[in-house]
């Protein structure tokens, strides 16, 4: 402890000599200049923000690399500490965003199983409906994909289709038709391996797509759809 101890060279009934005062003066000078004030001479929590001048701790005051990893508390940098949009493209290393880093951007329905229709109005194919709510107005691609041994638009009727067989894909929420393929051309049999569609401007808030088939006006026959799934890719 830096303790100031002032001796007592004088005594009662005696004059206070110059030498007495010099000795005491020297002790004080020694304390200030040699012993020096240390933390023992300061009250706890003496220096608060009041005593630190604004901008006093400049970059030059910090040793390079002084703020090491251990100086940062776990989870010190939270989302609120980072300004929105701070991580621009330039901040991201090339090829850093691997496939695992990208959130799932596709959806696949259950299998249609075996579905048949002779209706001359649009009839939704069982289970061929999918797609979570659309949150970004970006183009969407979709396909009917094979689940097992699959076929699409196969006639079980003797003589086959006459004409006007249609496959439609509609937005489940808006009902907008994004694909409308007209098949059947006086053929005795007709098969299609798959279909694809493209929606250039899906509506935010809508929730996917549905597949319909129709035996059109004047047409005859039965539409069979077997073992397909509807797959949606959000670009």
């Amino acid at each position, binding site marked *: 402890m830096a*303790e100031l*101890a*002032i001796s*007592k060279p004088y005594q009662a*009934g005696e004059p*206070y000599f110059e030498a007495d005062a010099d000795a*005491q003066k020297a002790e004080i000078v020694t*304390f200030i200049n040699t012993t020096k*004030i240390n933390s023992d*001479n*300061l*009250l706890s929590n*003496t220096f608060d923000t*009041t005593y*630190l*001048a*604004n901008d*006093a*701790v*400049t970059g030059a*005051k910090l*040793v390079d690399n002084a*703020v*090491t990893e*251990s*100086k*940062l508390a776990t*989870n*010190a*940098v939270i989302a609120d*500490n*980072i*300004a929105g*949009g*701070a*991580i621009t493209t*330039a*901040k*991201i290393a090339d*090829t*850093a*965003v691997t496939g*695992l880093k*990208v959130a799932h*951007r596709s959806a696949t329905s259950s299998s249609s199983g075996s579905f048949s229709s002779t209706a001359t109005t649009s009839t939704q194919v069982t289970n061929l409906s999918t797609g979570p709510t659309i*949150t970004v107005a*970006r183009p969407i*691609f979709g*396909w009917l994909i094979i689940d097992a041994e699959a076929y699409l638009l196969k006639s079980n009727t003797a003589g086959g289709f006459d004409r006007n067989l249609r496959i439609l894909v509609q937005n489940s929420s808006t009902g*907008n*038709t994004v*694909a409308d*393929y007209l*098949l059947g*051309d*006086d053929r005795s049999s007709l098969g*299609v391996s798959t279909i*694809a*569609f493209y929606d250039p401007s899906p509506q935010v808030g809508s929730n996917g797509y549905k597949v319909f088939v129709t035996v059109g006006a004047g047409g005859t026959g039965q539409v069979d759809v077997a073992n397909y799934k509807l797959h949606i890719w959000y*670009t």
Partner: protein
Amino acid sequence: MPSFTMTKNYRDGTTPTEEQLDAFWGSLETFVNLSKLGGDNFQTGFITAAKITDDSIDSSKLDNAAVTAAKLDTSSTRLDTDHFKDESVTTVKINTAAVTQEKLAAANIAVSADVTSATVTSSVSFSNFSGLTATLTAAGTRLVFIFLVGTGGNNQSTASGTATSAAIKPLYSLTADGTDIGQYRVESSPCGLMWVHAPSAGEVVYQVQGKVNAGTSLTLANYRLVAVEYR
């Protein structure tokens, strides 16, 4: 408040007594050793930058885990773009599935006009379906998927000919800058033909072509061509 006062019992014209000197010097000792210096004994803001030696605050001066989340600014002037070094966000810094669709730049897509009717008649060589062309500026490092798809709406997408489809025997081809990259024979309405191409960097023109039997023609109605670069 640790205010420093020195006891004065002596008077002018008198010799200070032992007790007076004891009180005088004792008050100094008491202040330094017991009362101690406090904030009130220092001027506000007296620790200026000039009083702190450069490079005086090294790692040892900072307590471990001293910088907590609460110590970092959350106001509008928090960590922004300038605080992050370019290419500092590497793969391991990104959480799985953190990159949502909203974070991705729009895909590079080129779309043709919506073609209500385009006809080919050639039986010798492929000729263009007018309007079914899309021009994409490719990065040169990604595959491009090209689709011939219906336009939807209330427009029925069909392929029809001047003779029965069986007689027409249509062939569909896609060219990239004039080079054939794949042919399909589809004897009903094509419900979404797809091609895959690996172009060099720069502009590439995709064009749908067709060829039919001699003496027949083939008309595509309500189709569009879409090229999308994989990312």
